[in-house]
């Protein structure tokens, strides 16, 4: 591995141990990260995609020094995340999705003053930077209010301001747009773009494919604790360039029928999305529109709405890579 990398991850593995049972207690082991290796270049915006429980947050927590790896090693800006934890902490900022991690009884400005002090930011510098950051994240004029009165989106944006107080070189954003309304999420993505234009190295985990497609230069797809693909969004889409996607809107499709569709010889993967009372079946097949009659025959007797055949997207590539578990 070269030193020009901001983040170097080398065969990371993490096991969680929990105790089960009341009288006859036994230790249960859960492998959250099996074997993860990747590098992120300085100034790169790297995405880590994967379904729930794939190991994204665990990986980020190991890289931000909050968890000790069971095996393997990782370096951030050349410092080991275990032995050089304090050096790593000076150079990174991190956000975990959600509203926790702030002092709700304090105002936004007091939260920032507090964390500026914990990051050893000179008070004079902090005095200038806090209004600038509040402005940057769209909290101008709201800094004096107590955080408990902030909306979820405002708290998320305050987290961004907090993480930029010490002008870190590397940012870890773990599902930062989760729970935000569409407008808030769009504004947030603009903040991420601005940070990238300042040459920050960013590791972003997200569930939203279009977000990764729009923002990330490279994407690592993680599933069951392993990186199953690592490439640019364009190249990842080529994984499914030989396929077409048949998108069928239907009502009340039972699991047995979905299994039957999956079992069709020309079907590569099936992903189901619930849309209000409807279900959208995304069926990947190399036969494209020719496969539609056979699929419709399998759905025989069900109420079916719109049927379209389209080109695959990054989401389809992702579904194929994670085996339809998304």
């Amino acid at each position: 591995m070269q030193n020009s990398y901001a983040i170097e991850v080398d065969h990371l593995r993490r096991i969680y141990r929990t105790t089960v049972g009341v009288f006859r207690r036994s230790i249960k082991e859960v492998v959250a990260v099996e074997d993860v290796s990747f590098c992120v270049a300085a100034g790169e915006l790297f995405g880590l995609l994967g379904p729930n429980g794939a190991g994204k947050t665990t990986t980020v927590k190991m890289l931000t020094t909050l968890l000790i790896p069971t095996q393997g090693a990782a370096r951030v800006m050349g410092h080991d995340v275990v032995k050089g934890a304090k050096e790593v902490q000076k150079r990174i900022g991190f956000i975990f999705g959600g509203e926790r991690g702030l002092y709700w009884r304090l105002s936004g400005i007091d939260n920032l003053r507090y964390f500026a002090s914990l990051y050893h930011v000179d008070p004079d510098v902090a005095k200038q930077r806090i209004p600038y950051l509040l402005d940057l994240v769209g909290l101008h004029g709201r800094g004096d209010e107590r955080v408990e009165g902030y909306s979820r989106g405002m708290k998320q944006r305050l987290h961004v301001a907090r993480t930029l107080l010490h002008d870190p070189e590397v940012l870890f954003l773990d599902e930062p747009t989760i729970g935000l309304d569409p407008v808030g999420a769009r504004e947030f993505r603009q903040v991420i773009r601005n940070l990238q234009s300042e040459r920050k190295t960013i590791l972003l985990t997200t569930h939203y494919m279009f977000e990764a497609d729009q923002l990330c230069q490279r994407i690592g797809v993680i599933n069951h604790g392993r990186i199953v693909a690592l490439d640019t969004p364009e190249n990842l889409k080529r994984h499914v360039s030989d396929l077409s996607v048949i998108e069928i809107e239907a009502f009340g499709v039972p699991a047995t029928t979905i299994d039957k569709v999956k079992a069709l010889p020309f079907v590569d993967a099936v992903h189901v999305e619930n849309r209000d009372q409807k279900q959208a079946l995304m069926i990947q097949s190399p036969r494209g529109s020719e496969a539609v009659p056979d699929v419709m025959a399998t759905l025989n007797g069900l109420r079916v709405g719109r049927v379209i055949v389209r080109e695959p997207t990054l989401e389809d590539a992702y579904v194929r890579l994670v085996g339809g578990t998304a």
Partner: protein
Amino acid sequence: MTTLTQRATWRASWRANWRTIWMVAEMSLRQMVMDGFIIFTVLVQPLLIALLGLWMLGDKGPDYIMFVVVGSGLTGLWSSLLFIGGNSINVERWSGTLETLVGVPTPLTLIVLGKNVANIIQSLASMVVAYLLAVVLFGYQIQFSQPLLFAVSILFTIIAFVSFALVLAPIFVMNPGVQAWQNAMEFPVYILCGFLFPIALLPSALTPLSYLLPPYWAARALHGTSSANAPLEEILLCWAMMLLFSAIYLFVSSRLFAKMLIKVRTDATLDVT
């Protein structure tokens, strides 16, 4: 040249650490004034104890009144140390801020120290409230027998109590079972350490146990310099014992913090979710 640079770096680092401790203390105080339980622990409860004490011992003379004022203040100090100081890390964990605190370059020990400074400042208020209660409400003419030595004793008391809290906090995080004994640890210390009446009233077999508790030496120094006019040698002994205990606790707490940080990062218990 190198030595000068090193010295400047060292000074800058100390200044930054002090600034951090005071910032943590300031922010903790701001949060405390919004918390009803903390107000009860450090103000209402000692106030009730002072009221009862003044009522019961009011006819015993000004020295007894001073004893009650200082003793009730000590109860506030001990309760604050035990509940607020002892839970200082767990509270951060429950509110989801511990991950953020562990992820900053400032050592967690300094952050907890700042929080304990805030606790002490707040709980000293209980002593002032008890004093004002005696003077204004009950109209007693009371004065400290050795004010200068009392002030120094307060300082040593703060150091001893803060050091003790630094030991309790990581123990409570690593051993949730011990935390269940928190309530049981409150009143026995009031009694064993002579906060509200001299330990001479207790069975003599309990005296060695009192000697092992730093709040006993704090209570002896504070009572000795406020109402008892104790000889200087006795006060010096109390100060020495408090400093000895503080040194032991600071050493033990530094080891416990390091152990705790490895344990919570290994067990993934920085957050409760």
